[in-house]
């Protein structure tokens, strides 16, 4: 068991990172901390993908010497997925940060419990 974990330490670290991020999103009461947790969670998945896509001793899939067989290159798809994932993560973070700015302007705090308490007193008009 431990041997397996050591052999796949990158994946193990990735899952631990994901866990840290996930619990932060779930249990932190400050919005910025939640956001940081979300980014850690995504980073965990990207690390997982990147480490899975790299095979020791193989080259990046750019063909300079046509005589080399396909087995001497790594698969480019995981790297492509990581890039796509990063784009998604950045845009989501941007939207969340803008929401935080809007909430802060209205309630002057980023503690979710306080915001919730303050919003309860608002009018319930349609």
């Amino acid at each position, binding site marked *: 068991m431990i041997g397996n974990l050591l052999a796949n330490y990158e994946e193990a670290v990735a899952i631990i990172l994901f866990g840290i991020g*996930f619990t932060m999103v779930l249990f932190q009461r400050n919005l910025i901390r939640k956001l940081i947790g*979300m980014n850690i969670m995504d980073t965990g998945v990207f690390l*997982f993908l990147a480490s899975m896509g790299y095979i020791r001793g193989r080259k990046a899939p750019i063909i300079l010497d046509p005589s080399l067989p396909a087995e001497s290159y790594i698969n480019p798809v995981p790297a492509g997925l990581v890039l796509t994932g990063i784009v998604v993560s950045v845009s989501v973070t941007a939207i969340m940060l803008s929401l935080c700015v809007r*909430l802060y302007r209205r309630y002057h705090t980023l503690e979710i419990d306080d915001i919730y308490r303050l919003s309860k007193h*608002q009018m*319930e008009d349609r």
Partner: protein
Amino acid sequence: MDIIRNFPLFTIILSLFSGVLCLVLDAKAARRYTLGYEGVILCLCGAVFWYAVRTGRAVTYVCGEFPAPWGNELRFGVLEAMMACGFIAVLICCVVAGGRYILQDIDESKINLYYALINLLTAALMAIVWTNDVFTGYVFLEILTLTSCGILIVREIGRTTLAAVRYMILNLMGSGLFLLGLVLLYDVTGNLLMVPMQEEIAQLMAQPHTAMVVTMATGILTMGLAIKSGLFPFHYWMPDAYGWATPTSGAIMSSLVSKCYIFLLFKIYYRAIGIEVFARMPIRYLLLALGMCGIIFGSVSALRAENINHMAAFSSAAQIGYIYMGLGLGGESGYAAAMFHILAHAVTKSLIFLTTPRLAEASGNSLRFRALQGSALRDRGAGMFFTVGALSMIGIPVFAGFSSKLLVAMAAADTGKGALMLSVILVLAVSAVLNAQYFIRTLIRIFGDSEDTADKTAYFREDFILPMAALTGMNLALGLFSWLFTDLIRMGLGMFG
């Protein structure tokens, strides 16, 4: 007729293009343009549906001529086309009927942005319905999440911002889990296209240690999409998000967005994992149990709500439970019931979310039950259509809600397991009683005696009446001709895998 094979791609590209175009149009032009092009999309989806029914087989559309396992694919059959038609038809009704509130709730300089978001949301809906690639599914899932958050926060009051933050946090946790599950599946199968993935998984399930990885990945992925679609116990964001958004957004989010996540989940079960493999997984029973809890707890929360929109939102949580219960029951009849309920709930819940703001408007702009006393008498049109929605939700025969409940009950009977059947029927019965209790209570309230019964809406508004009549028509069609729709869904399931 082979040009129809390109139509699914057209619907996605056209929607993306329209989203960009709306940025440079003014508010009125953006609205006209959006309605026109959504009409075109509906026609395209209708043509695809006709083509799929006529040929009787699924079509795989290879993007960019790269064959599997490399390229990206769209795939359509009767079920996908039916969902696309249903989603777009409901979306058009929501946009038309909520038009007046869009003008009221949104700053005039941002109205064209709202329509841009609606167009991008359409692109995401279409892509998720048609795609045959799990990673494309993930990307458009995120687009769907972002655009739905956009149409929620565009009404700039504090509560929508707070609701959007809660919505986004839960959704992002769901997306993270979905991505992790998807990456794990990619890790063990080496494929992102659904059909080659299914072939790999069939081999992997033969080995106990790889079977465990597949089961775990499926579990993580399921949990992600369950959080996103609001399955019990992840439904607490619903009331604020649906209740405070502008009515068009609330209706679209409750009737289309959450259903689209479930459709993607179902597609992954059916096509990427393999439905026989899924049927043997313990996750199925978890979905069944959570679905049942969702029905009961959603209904109880709805019963305790003091605000009509919150009640409708909690009732949505209960209805999501029905869909998951259908998936959990399994078998062709279970899946058919789940798919039928997706459509039935979409046409019913949008009817409710679009009528409540008018009832509130006739009652001093309050959504609280106390203020709504006699509101249906002050706005008879809205009262009438709310009644249709409420009767359908309760499950009165003739309406769509009855047929879907009947289909779930029949699916339970088809499993042939006495205890399971009994518990499902029991949950259905309890839920019917609870549903009836809170909706009939609401009906009594809105039709009740009130000092002020003067009609507040003396003028005939065709932009409200026509889409509402269309939704009522769809509701009645689903209820009266449920046999036709279930036959089509079964035909679709036959070519879905």
